[in-house]
């Protein structure tokens, strides 16, 4: 059975084709899901790709979170379905309160596009499941508002529950605790600022992103019984 990945498109999203191409490279099939649709259809995983939904006006993700598709994403996530927000998608997930914290302007007050090194900090998320913690990956970042912020209690909870999926080895944006990606308690909802889809082809300089997207597709295909995600979802 091929895994079907639903890739959500808001007006202003721009990485949807890239995410689709990268997941297809891994043998999955990708389906674009329009923001105004209230249903996701028959998908095994959902990716909210990068871009500038609604121009990032007001705050990145602030308008997108009210789109009809987001109710469907919430239901899908509540049922244990894998949901990954990349960059702008991460911002949407925090605005929708599917993930804690917020993404502020980079410490340097400038947009940053470059390849950085991240370290897998936890294998509890659907994006890092089966990947050895401590593994380092070279993946591009591309954002202005990527400085992860949360209050100390939330940070303690994230650390205590092993929910920091990825950390920068050389913090490019001022994120608290070098956080590059976090997940929810169940591990099935993940947000990250780096763009794994941009690192899926040696011709483009790195294919380390296949590690993350491969993990996502593997955890979407396999029935989630016994996984922390399914345990929480059915609890």
């Amino acid at each position, binding site marked *: 059975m091929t895994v079907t990945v639903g890739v959500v498109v808001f007006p202003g999203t721009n990485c949807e084709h890239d995410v689709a191409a990268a997941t297809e490279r891994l043998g999955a099939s990708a389906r674009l899901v329009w923001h105004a649709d209230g249903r996701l259809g028959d998908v095994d995983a959902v990716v909210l790709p990068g871009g*500038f939904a609604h*121009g990032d006006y007001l705050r990145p993700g602030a308008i997108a979170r009210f789109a009809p598709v987001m109710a469907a994403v919430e239901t899908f996530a509540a049922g244990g379905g894998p949901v990954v927000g990349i960059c702008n998608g991460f911002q949407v997930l925090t605005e929708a309160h599917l993930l804690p914290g917020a993404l502020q302007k980079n410490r340097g007050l400038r*947009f940053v*596009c470059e390849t950085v090194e991240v370290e897998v900090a936890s294998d509890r998320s659907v994006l890092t499941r089966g990947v050895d913690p401590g593994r380092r990956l070279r993946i591009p970042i591309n954002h202005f508002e990527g400085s992860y912020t949360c209050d100390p209690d939330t940070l303690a909870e994230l650390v205590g529950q092993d929910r920091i999926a990825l950390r920068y080895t050389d913090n490019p944006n001022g994120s608290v605790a070098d956080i590059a990606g976090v997940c929810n308690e169940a591990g099935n909802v993940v947000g990250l600022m780096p763009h794994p889809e*941009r690192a899926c082809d040696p011709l*483009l*300089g790195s294919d380390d992103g296949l590690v993350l997207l491969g993990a996502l597709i593997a955890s979407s295909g396999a029935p989630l019984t016994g996984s922390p995600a399914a345990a929480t979802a059915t609890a």
Partner: protein
Amino acid sequence: MSAGARPEGAVDDPGVHRALGLTDDEAGAIGRILGRAPNHLELAMYAVMWSEHCSYKSSRIHLRRLPTEGPGVLVGPGENAGVVDAGGGVAIALRIESHNHPSAIEPYQGAATGVGGILRDIFTMGARPVALMDPLRFGPLDDDRSRWVAAGVVAGISGYGNAVGVPTVGGEVVFDGCYAGNPLVNVLCAGLLPVERLVLGQATGVGNLAVLLGSATGRDGIGGVSVLASAGFGGDAAAEEAKRPNVQVGDPYEEKRLIEACLQLLDEHLLVGIQDLGGAGLACATSETASRGGVGMDVDVTAVHRREPGMRAWEVMTSESQERMLAIVTPDDLERLLAVCERWEVRASVVGRVTTTGRLRVLEGWGGEVQADVPAASLHEDAPLYDRPRRRPADLDRRADDDPARLPPPEDPGKDLAALLLDPSWVYRQYDHQLFLNTVVGPGSDAALLRLAAPGVPGGEGRGFALSTDGNGSWCSLDPRAGTALVVAESALNVACVGARPVAVVNCLNFGNPEHPEVMWQLSEAVDGMAEACRALGLPVVGGNVSLYNESRGADIDPTPVVATLGLVDRLERRPPGVAFAAGDRVVLVQPPGTRPSLGGSLWAVRRRGHRGGRLSPLDLAAHLRLLGLVTGLVADGLPSGVHDVSAGGLGVALAEMAVGGGVGAALAGVADHVGLFGEGPSRVVFCVPPDRLGTLTQRARDAGMEAVELGGGGGDRLVLDGLVDVAVADLAAAARGIAGWW
């Protein structure tokens, strides 16, 4: 219908046309075209359409001398963008534009709207924009205002380009005092399209509808093109204040939706024609589509969706509000067009109808009062054409004789070398340069190299295209003809360095005040130099832009033609070697025998000694053409481990950039003195090559009629040039990055 009704309100006060920037002769010509005195709206439309920016009235007679034809050229100059056949059913649309004057007064929005404008030129052709480039020139960064301009321009390109979702894959950053009062902000865009989707901006089919898509129309940049682009900066505060309301604000989110909506409309075959609204707004778009289609158009100004109350017809017709397109559609397809627009949340209003009359009529409501009635084609074709006086600058011979080789040599060449390095990563780090998973070589190398692929454009699998933008005001001020030819040569060589075959160019001619005969002479010479080089190298000029009146306080900028070269890669299987040394590999300089670099107009002379004299090194175009073939072939075959052409800063800077690029030093010899180190000249490439391939490389160079001079070997953490330079690579890198401290 009020057919036959005549527009009211003839203007008989010459003060009005003069205020609009029309000369008395031009106003007289308008009267003759109409057979009556024009009214205010008509005058305003002619004024913007006949402005320097829209009509190229000072440059057109010269531009005709450029070679514009070639086997792969599908669309040449004169359309919104040039289009080149890339084979396999894929075509590449290419265009470059300037946004110099708006950027001088509101750097962020000036640059941002420059990006927006160039994108529309590309998707108007039916192409999906896939790459932007930004050749930039500012005053030195130790000046507060130049710093403000530079930071704002870069932020504006970043803010708009990233949000609209088109990667910025390269450009230039140059600092020179001549740009302090008048920065140059050029923007290039390339787009890909299936050949059969190619559309031209024309209206046909009587009864078809003109639909205005996108942003509401406000009083943005009313008369902007004539006011801003057709006048220099006098340094007069009141005059600059008066220009202020002409600044427009860009909305990349609107543009993104417009791109998607228009491409969908084209894919669904719902459009007869489409045209972007740029300079001169609706007046330009309606008359241009009508005259290209050989038809007329009635425009209902009241149907234009507006942002502000109380706008007059002339304001609506000449507004330069951003993010708008004019679509020509059959009445039958209107409903489906509106549905596509609704999906993308793009506003659409039917504002015009195609008529048989050949006239552009502006109406106050269908069947309402006729506000303007002019022959549509006259707004373009009857624009004045000037052969302005030209004069060779009086000081040119004196400057040519003032050879910088006579300057005392540097005491520490290594120190001068470090001071000439500039790492532009501070700039391009702020640009998304990777979107669409196409960017094989992004900014930071000789040219950008992209896969020939875009959503909705099949047929380019396994192939690529390359782009480089280049200009050199110092060379061109010494000798605009030879300097421009050198710029063309360099640009083509940059593209070859990533393994691409140069196939076409576009250009942006940034010059001073055309009313100065010296400037017109420079322009004319530059065109001849470009024509000569392009002809010899087989590079058709498929498009361009002319930006005049680049001056401040009476001083013209150095003549700065910017050339962008497009190259094609037939087999894109591996990443090209890049600007780097590899430890253990040999370093070889390949050049035509007898090459003599010159310090005339060189970075070293200008920047280290403030010296702007001398002669340029000669260019042998036949040899250069052979070199291009050689370099493309060597790189495509994967022979070298590093490659870099020698350009501004000479061999020394090229070697230093390779050391910094790969983080590996080299031990080299064979450079005699500072002239050899910093002298500039065409047709030189440095290769780094594994020892076992050295013989092949040397042989292939000889077969191409080149000499291959072995300079030494890569390795270590210092760049050593026997007897001249001995610097740590880390120190060179730090010096190059030093620039970032200024922003």
